[in-house]
């Protein structure tokens, strides 16, 4: 394999590492919180007060189809596609930090 990776591959790899670090930091925080929650007295079950999901679901489905369609439009989108997976990992990592502040 060439000793010099293309810039986009280097950037992708670096972003992946950042997402991994964020994810693991969140994971550890989440695990600790789960242990503390388990040790605590049971709390009252709360209603799911989040909004309706119809339009967000439609938007997500359309967006996924659009992303795939764009892969066939230009190779640039093929290069960008892996970043979406990295963003998924990063968002899950962030959720661990955001969760205690929800509701």
């Amino acid at each position: 394999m060439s000793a010099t990776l293309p810039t986009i591959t280097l950037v992708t790899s670096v972003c992946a590492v950042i997402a991994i670090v964020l994810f693991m930091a969140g994971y550890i925080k989440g695990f600790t919180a789960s242990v503390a929650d388990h040790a605590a007295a049971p709390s009252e079950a709360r209603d799911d007060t989040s909004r309706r999901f119809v339009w967000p679901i439609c938007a997500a489905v359309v967006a996924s189809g659009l992303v795939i369609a764009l892969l066939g439009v230009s190779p640039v989108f093929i290069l960008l596609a892996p970043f979406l997976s990295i963003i998924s990992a990063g968002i899950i990592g962030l959720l661990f930090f955001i969760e205690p502040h929800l509701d």
Partner: protein
Amino acid sequence: MDRSILSSTSNHLTPLMGFTLMAGLGIFMLVIALIVKRRLVSNTRDFVASGRRIGLAFGTGSLISVWTWAMAVMMSSAMTYRWGLSGLFWFVVPNGLAIMIVIPFARYLRKNMPQGYTISKFIDHRFKSNVSSAIVTVTMVFGILLEIMINLKGTSVVMSTVFNIDWRTATLFAIVIILIYSFFGGLWTSVMTGTFNTLMITAVAAAIVSIVYAKVGGADNVFNAVAQVATSQGSQLAPGMEWSGHDLLGVTRWDTAAGFGITLAFGLFAATVADQIFWQKVWSIKSQYVGRSFFMAGVLFYPIPITLGLLGLIGIGFQIPLAAIGGDLAAVGPYIVSHIGLPTVIVLLYVLVILAACYSTIDGGAAAMASVVTVDIVKKIRPTIGEQSLFVYAKLAMLVGGVIAAAIILSGIDFTSLVLTTYALKTAILLPLTLAIMWSRTNSLGFVSGIVLSILIGMPVRHVFGELAGTLTILLVSGLTVWLGAMLKPQRFDIASLRTVKDALAISDTVQDLPSAVRPEPSR
């Protein structure tokens, strides 16, 4: 793209490496499992439902991991390799939607039956009919077994392709490892290990795919090669599977939709709505996060098969014949990664991604099996069973389920019939189940008749006229029959009455004192 450069790196990828990978990942999961067992599991309710304390982040991560099967990781590239981007489109879009369509049912049922554990138990309370609940229980068990088997099969495909390990040995090795760590901790273990596995199939997989593309000359090279293949006369992956003359870079191929897309879509919807692995999460995630967990899981799942599906484009670019990958479309991803001269560490990481997907789905299935057996079978037969004995049954269920699944695969029996049976049951159950949840006039007559008739009529139609016709027939007959049943025997069910259903696993006051490792928890 010159196919002659493809050569196996098998000299560097020894079976010992493969076994080390499988065992290494298993040991890592075992460490997590032992910590989970010590810190998070006190009783059967913790074991099968995590004490209903799974938060948003772990809920999202674990939902993604149980839905991203080993086969799904490889099938996204397989469908792209077979059909071009239309294949990726029809594989990916319904897949994410399948998680999200559970939301309205999940929220509704969690609100109205907060102490539930399984969808079979809901049906049991809904219709007060042993036949209805038995049908659903059997469907759930078949579905779980099938998911375990398909993922074991996926593991054996990648291990045999990359490391030349005998597929039977890989199957046995994998199931032993997974059952060992799943034994400790139950659903919490599945959630924690699954969430970690989600990291593997997102960020790690993204880096790997990017490196693979760099190795084969970049996205431009692949893009142009695929476009050229589409216009090259006679290009095909196998007789009857032509690339030539098809729009491989477009998403509007109708033959893809008719060939597998539409049928797969309905099958996927049935796979989540009629799957205890997901319903177990509905009752295990904190009630205020159920909707958001499923939504986030669906959205954040999408990039995973899109990213991994890009490997299928490389398969087209190289015009890899199906015969070169052993006749199995699913092997195209592992084949490419192990034949383009990547550093061994990258190949090993890719295999870890597949193993992560496999392990997480199988341990999720094992946890679901524990919930179905304890709640729908053991507690039904022996309602006053003590906590310790119930805990034993929960663990036994996981072991027995895994052993049966592995035994079926190892026997070499073509489990196509099991696949067909489970497919039929799940598709047949889809509409009656959703109507049972959302329509108060659904009765047991319509529910049972709908399932039975749709199978009796729909499966022969499927056999004669194909999958699409069969699937549509099953759905139509099942839905119509439920409606007819409501007309013939008018009655209304007050779903709010399920709020008084007691926690089936609540520890009774007569339970003997438990050893210090297992302490009772007050009813929630």
